[in-house]
């Protein structure tokens, strides 16, 4: 899953370690999310959304356009 975490972090001039501290996760977790090797759990995704004050779908992109009601 693609995400804008690296860009959002860079806009705030935060290091991976700094973001990890704010989320109370390891630096490796932040790196794994940024590089797309790991998709965060829903609670962590909500935490990210609250931290950046953005909806989850603006941070993460699963490659699907619009709503999936089919």
């Amino acid at each position, binding site marked *: 899953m693609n995400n804008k975490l690296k860009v959002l972090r860079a806009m705030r*001039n935060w290091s991976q370690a*700094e973001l990890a*501290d704010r989320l*109370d996760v390891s630096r490796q*977790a932040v790196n794994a999310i940024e590089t797309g090797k790991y998709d*965060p759990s829903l609670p962590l995704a909500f935490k990210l959304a609250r931290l950046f004050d953005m909806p989850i779908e603006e941070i993460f992109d699963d490659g699907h356009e619009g709503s999936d009601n089919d």
Partner: protein
Amino acid sequence: MTETRNMKRPMSPRRKRYAAGIGLALVVGAVLGAVMQRGETGDGLTIFSNAPLTPGFAAGAAILWVVGMIVSLTMYHRAVDDHEERAYLWAGLAAWYTFTLSAPTWWVLHRASLAPAPDAMLLFAGALAVNLIVWLWLKYR
């Protein structure tokens, strides 16, 4: 911003619990290994042999292992983030598959006199090695 980047940040309660859990597991392992090695009688490493032990030492080592592991693993699992928890779960699964493939294979070959008797500690060490490799790969790749 640069100042906050370079500042030494205090450890969060979660990271303190994490460090304490890992530290306790290392201390338990080091104490057990050191005490067993001090009683070495052969040429190799006593901790990896099947040499006899005194009942008192064996009972003490077993209690230390079980209690130490339960306490340190409880601390670890209460402190890990979900990225590491996922790495731990996949590593545990890989270790379990290693054991389920190797133990019955070795056992059945032994019954046909095609292999020596299965060695529980060797099976444990093999599964543990796989566990460690997968955990390290998933956490640090």
